[in-house]
């Protein structure tokens, strides 16, 4: 068995009395686009900086291709880093910024010129080579930072919230740019963000951080549809949480009880376990008459018009609050009104039980 590309093994970092990192362990696969997602102060940036070599860890090891690099200084690690705010060298031009890693590696003359021109073309800045970096827009500075971090063909590219300073339009443009550069260079990308949409759109896998710990690692679909716990469920968008108790198994389906209602989930849950049935609002349908399968009666409390869909707040039995998203094309949409009694229903494969 070959060693994993990068392995973080039980990282711990304490600032004063606060544990910034608490036993963070994960592996990074070569060539993947891995995202660290979490709220501010969750440890995602600290983990990235520890990986880059800027933080002295209190505990744990960082392994690169099986080799322990925990104490290695940043310049020996060969990881490209794109910092928040880009951290360009303000006294240099675009080309000088991008050429700096080559200068350090004693690559000079025609080869250096060719590589600088080539990488600037790939990020779409060929015409800007001789501009001072201070006179570039945010998006252009971002591209310089990317070119500078990619030109020396690093083993991995670490990106610390690179899009957070850009406005919405530019963010979406740069997201596509990042995805293209990842395909183009084939380098492993490690991306830190607090924006779940960004994480879902870009990543091969997502690591969800909270309070210095890893809450879940998985593909975007896994963390979105099958969150490991309530934190992950709520952090990645809206989630209905219905308290349930697993009753019995029927093949690959578990029958759960919520109050007196029987709800079926296509998952294996140990009978007797208490937990939450997690259901995304967009997975829930509404009807006026009781349908077959999973259904809960509820009253519409508020309706918010969103153009393509309606956001509904409903109250089910025992005061349980539910959210639903209904397409405006749904036949029911025109007839809905606050105070109306409806049935919320969903297929058995849409629900997910969290027993934590």
């Amino acid at each position, binding site marked *: 068995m070959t060693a994993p590309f990068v392995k973080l093994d039980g990282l711990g970092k304490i600032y004063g009395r606060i544990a910034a990192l608490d036993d963070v362990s994960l592996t990074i696969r070569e060539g993947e686009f891995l995202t660290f997602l979490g709220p501010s102060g969750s440890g995602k940036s600290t983990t990235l900086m520890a990986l880059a*070599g800027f933080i002295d860890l209190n505990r744990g090891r960082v392994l690169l291709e099986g080799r322990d690099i925990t104490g290695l*200084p940043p*310049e020996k690690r060969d990881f490209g880093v794109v910092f928040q705010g880009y*951290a360009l060298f303000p*006294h240099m031009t675009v080309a000088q910024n991008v050429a700096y890693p080559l200068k350090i590696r004693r690559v000079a003359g025609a080869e250096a010129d060719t590589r600088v021109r080539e990488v600037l073309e790939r990020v779409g800045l060929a015409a800007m080579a001789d501009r001072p970096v201070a006179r570039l827009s945010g998006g252009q500075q971002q591209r310089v*930072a990317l070119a500078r*971090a990619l030109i020396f063909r690093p083993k991995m590219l670490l990106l610390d919230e690179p899009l957070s300073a850009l406005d919405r339009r530019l963010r979406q443009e740069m997201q596509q740019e990042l995805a293209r550069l990842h395909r183009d260079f084939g380098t492993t990308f490690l991306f830190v963000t607090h924006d779940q949409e960004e994480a879902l759109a870009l990543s091969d896998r997502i690591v969800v951080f909270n309070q210095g710990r890893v809450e879940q690692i998985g593909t975007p679909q896994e963390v979105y549809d099958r969150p490991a716990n309530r934190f992950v469920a709520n952090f990645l968008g809206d989630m209905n949480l219905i308290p349930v108790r697993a009753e019995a198994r029927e093949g690959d389906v578990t029958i759960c009880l919520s109050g007196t209602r029987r709800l079926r989930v296509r998952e294996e849950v140990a009978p007797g376990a208490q937990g939450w049935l997690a259901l995304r609002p967009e997975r829930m349908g509404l009807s006026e008459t009781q349908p077959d399968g999973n259904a809960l009666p509820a009253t519409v409390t508020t309706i918010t018009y969103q153009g393509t869909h309606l956001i509904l707040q409903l109250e089910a039995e025992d005061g349980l609050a539910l959210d639903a998203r209904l397409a405006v094309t749904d036949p029911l949409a025109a007839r809905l009104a606050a105070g109306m009694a409806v049935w919320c229903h969903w297929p058995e494969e849409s629900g997910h039980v969290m027993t934590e």
Partner: protein
Amino acid sequence: MASPTSETLKIWVFLILPLPVLVVLGYVVPTAGVLGWSFTLPEPGVQNYAAVLEAQRLQTVIWRTLRICLLTTVISVGLAYLIAYRWRFATPRGRQLIELVVLVSFWLSMLIRAFAWLVLLRGDGVINQTLLWLGLIEAPLPLVRNEFGAVLGMVHFMVPFAVLPMLNSFREVDDRVLNAARSLGATPGQVLRDIFFPLTLPGMAAASGIVFIFSLGSFVTPALLGGGRAVMLAEYIYLQMFQLSNWGMGATLAIVLMAMVVVTALIFGRLFGFKNIVGGLK
């Protein structure tokens, strides 16, 4: 009745008026007077300026002044750079300590500092006595009452003036920019050479300008620690005016000194921008 705006205007004029009056009475009139003396005493003519260009003794004083000032500037700014560098990368506590040490020496009267150096440096002073007692030297070293003593005292006086304008430009260097260079493969030494030093150069230039200009007019420190063997322009002007009653020559040299200050300020302003020189003082 006057409208409110013209009323406000009157108040503003009244508030601002003392400033131009002070400038005219305090600077323009006396300077014009000194300029007048330089052309009229002891008799009308340009003979005083001709003497500046010809007299060996005067040129020696002017060159010595420039030499001592240059040496003082280089040494003070060099030391100040080390202090500011240390400060930049110190913990908050360490920074406070460095600021305190710099400011205490800044606040001490220059007379007290000059006499303190005399106690340490003179022939029967602490340093020479210790070295003699240890048998490292056979006769006291000439540490004071010469150019060495003058430069030492001036450096001590000037280091805080060099440190303070540098702190601003050192503080403005972003940690992330330095870390970025490390991540791109630069060792700490290369980061200092390629990134930190170029980014702090304007602060260093501002400090050099300030120290050089202040040094040009030094009087007390070189007079006490130079002991008559490192006479600089300011002391020489004093001698001309108050010992020899040669008011015309004293005034002429005062104008020369002022011209040196203005020329230095213009050179630094042209090279590094006035804003940097002035901004460094904030």
